[in-house]
C-alpha cells in the first residue's frame, strides 16, 4: 500500500535530572489508507512516536529521524509556520480524555466550527453548518442541541464524538489517535470506534491508533506494531497477533486474564535484557 505517512529511523531523546532518556530508538513504519495500531506498555515510547510526528513533544525533547514524510512533503524540513498549517489540516490528533482536550469555557459546537475556520476561508454561518453536519456524521442525534452545550455538560462518549468531529472537520489525511477510548466504558467504546472505523473507510484516511490494549488493537486495526523500550519489536497483521512470535508480545498476550482460558495463576512476563539489543 502506498504510504501517506512515512517514518524512518525516528529517535526521541529527552534530558532528565538522572541523565538522558532515549525514549524512541530507531522506529520506522508507513501508514496508508488503513488502521495501524501501535501497542505497548506505558513507557514503551508509543505516545512519543505519535507526538514526534507532529512535532509536539514536550520541551527539552530532541527528535531526529532519517525521514518523516507526509506524501511528498518532508516534515523534517517544514518550518514551524508550515507545521502549524499541517497540524489539524493534514494530520490530526485525538487524545485520551476529551475533558482535558476541549476548552471548558467555550460551547462545543463553536470549538468544532473554529477548527474549520482556522483552516478554511468561510463565514461563521457556513462553519456552523459544517460543524452541525459533522456532528451528524459522528452520530450525535440532536446536533443543534449539543452544539450549544459546554464540555462539562456532555458525557465522556459524547465528548469523544465531539473531539472526532473537531479533528476530522478540516479533512486531514492522517489521524493519530492516542488511547482515544481508554477513558470510556466498553459499550461506549465500541460505538466510538465504529464511528472512527466508518470515517476512515469512507474518507480513505490513514489512522495511527496508539493503545496499550492488545485485544482492542487486534480486533480494530488492520496492522499492528508492538513497541517495547522505544523499539518496534514486532510487526504483523492485526488478525495474526494471536500468533505473534516475539517473546515480549507472547508474554503480554499470555499475562492477560482471558475469559476463554481460565487459569489459577497468570503467567508473568519475564523481561529479557537481550530484547534491548
Amino acid at each position, binding site marked *: 500500500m502506498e504510504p501517506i505517512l512515512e517514518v524512518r529511523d525516528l529517535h526521541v531523546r529527552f534530558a532528565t535530572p538522572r541523565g538522558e532518556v532515549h525514549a524512541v530508538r530507531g522506529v520506522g513504519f508507513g501508514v496508508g489508507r488503513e488502521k495501524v495500531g501501535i501497542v505497548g506498555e506505558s513507557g514503551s515510547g508509543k505516545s512519543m512516536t505519535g507526538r514526534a510526528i507532529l512535532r509536539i513533544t514536550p520541551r527539552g525533547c530532541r527528535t531526529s529521524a532519517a525521514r518523516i514524510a507526509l506524501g511528498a512533503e518532508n516534515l523534517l524540513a517544514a518550518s514551524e509556520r508550515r507545521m502549524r498549517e499541517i497540524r489539524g489540516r493534514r494530520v490530526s490528533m485525538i487524545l485520551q480524555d476529551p475533558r482535558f482536550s476541549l476548552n471548558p469555557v467555550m460551547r462545543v459546537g463553536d470549538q468544532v466550527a473554529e477548527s474549520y475556520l482556522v483552516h478554511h476561508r468561510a463565514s461563521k454561518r457556513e462553519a456552523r453548518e459544517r460543524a452541525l453536519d459533522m456532528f451528524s456524521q459522528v452520530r450525535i442525534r440532536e446536533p443543534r442541541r449539543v452544539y450549544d452545550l459546554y464540555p462539562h455538560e456532555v458525557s*465522556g462518549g459524547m465528548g469523544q464524538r465531539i473531539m472526532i468531529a473537531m479533528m476530522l472537520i478540516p479533512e486531514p489525511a492522517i489521524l493519530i489517535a492516542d488511547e482515544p477510548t481508554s477513558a470510556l466504558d466498553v459499550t461506549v467504546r465500541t460505538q466510538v470506534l465504529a464511528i472512527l472505523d466508518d470515517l476512515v473507510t469512507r474518507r480513505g484516511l490513514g489512522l495511527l491508533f496508539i493503545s496499550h490494549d*492488545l485485544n482492542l488493537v487486534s480486533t480494530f486495526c488492520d496492522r499492528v506494531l508492538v513497541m517495547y523500550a522505544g523499539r518496534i519489536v514486532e510487526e504483523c497483521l492485526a488478525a495474526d497477533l494471536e500468533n505473534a512470535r516475539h517473546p515480549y508480545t507472547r508474554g503480554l498476550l499470555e499475562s492477560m486474564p482471558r475469559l476463554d482460558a481460565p487459569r489459577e495463576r497468570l503467567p508473568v512476563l519475564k523481561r529479557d535484557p537481550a530484547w534491548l539489543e
Partner: protein
Amino acid sequence: MSFLAVRDLRVAFGGPDDRNMAVDGVSFSIAEGEAYGLVGESGCGKSTILRAISGLNAAWHGDIVLEGTALDARRTLAQYRRTQMVFQDPYASLHPRHTVDAILSEPLAIHGLDDAHGRVDRALDQVGLGREFRFRYPHQLSGGQRQRIAIARAMILEPRLVLLDEPTSALGVSIQSEVLNVLTDLRRANGLTYLLVSHDLGVVAHMCERVGVMRQGRLVLETDAAAIRAGAVTDPYTRRFIDASAGYDRAMALRWDALEEEGAG
C-alpha cells in the same frame, strides 16, 4: 450463614432537589473464603458499595451484616480491622512523604499491635517485596511495587474481608498479572474473603467465583464466573457488556445502533 450479607443497601448523593441514588436497593451475600466480583461501567455505584461496607462512607441505609453482626455507621476498632481495602490508584493512596516502613507501621500503631518490626517484614515478604524496600519512599517505587505496598498495608492487620477497588486498573497488563497473582496467593494462604470491584470482566472472571453485574445503582444480574465464560448469560445489558469487553466488532456496533434507532423511533 453467609460471611457478608448486604441487604437493600441504598446510598444517595445530593440534596432533596438533585438526589442521585448511587446505590439503589442492592442485596447480595458472600460465603467465607469466597471471592465475589462486582462489575459495571463508571458511575454504576460499585465503588460506592465498597465505601459503605468499609465504613469510609457512613451515610447509607439498609443492612450490612458481617459474620452475623450488623454493622452501624460507627464501627469499633476491631470491626475496622476485620475489613480492609485496597484502592485503585497506588499513586494517590500512599502518603508521598512517608516511607514504606511508616506506611505499614501506622495501622499497627492505631490498632495497638505488638512486634511492629516483625510484622512489617512479614508483610513485605507476603507481597513479594524484599526487606530492602522498607525505607524507601513511594516515588522510588514503580506502580506495581506501590500497589504491593498498598496490599501489604491492608494485609498487615490480618483482615478477614478484603475490599479491592479496581486494584490493577492503573497498571499495565504485565504488572497486572503479577499483582493479581499476589492477591490469589494471599487469599489462598490466609483463607480470605474478597469483594472485588472492576470494570474489567476478564479480571473479575479470573479472580472471582461469583459475579454481580451492576447498572445505574442496581444489581441487574448475579451469576458465576463459569456462566460468563460459557456465554450462558441472557440478560441483554450483561450480554452487551460481555460482547464489548471481547474487543471491537463492527457488526456488533451496527446491531446496537439499529436497536437504538428502534428505541428512539
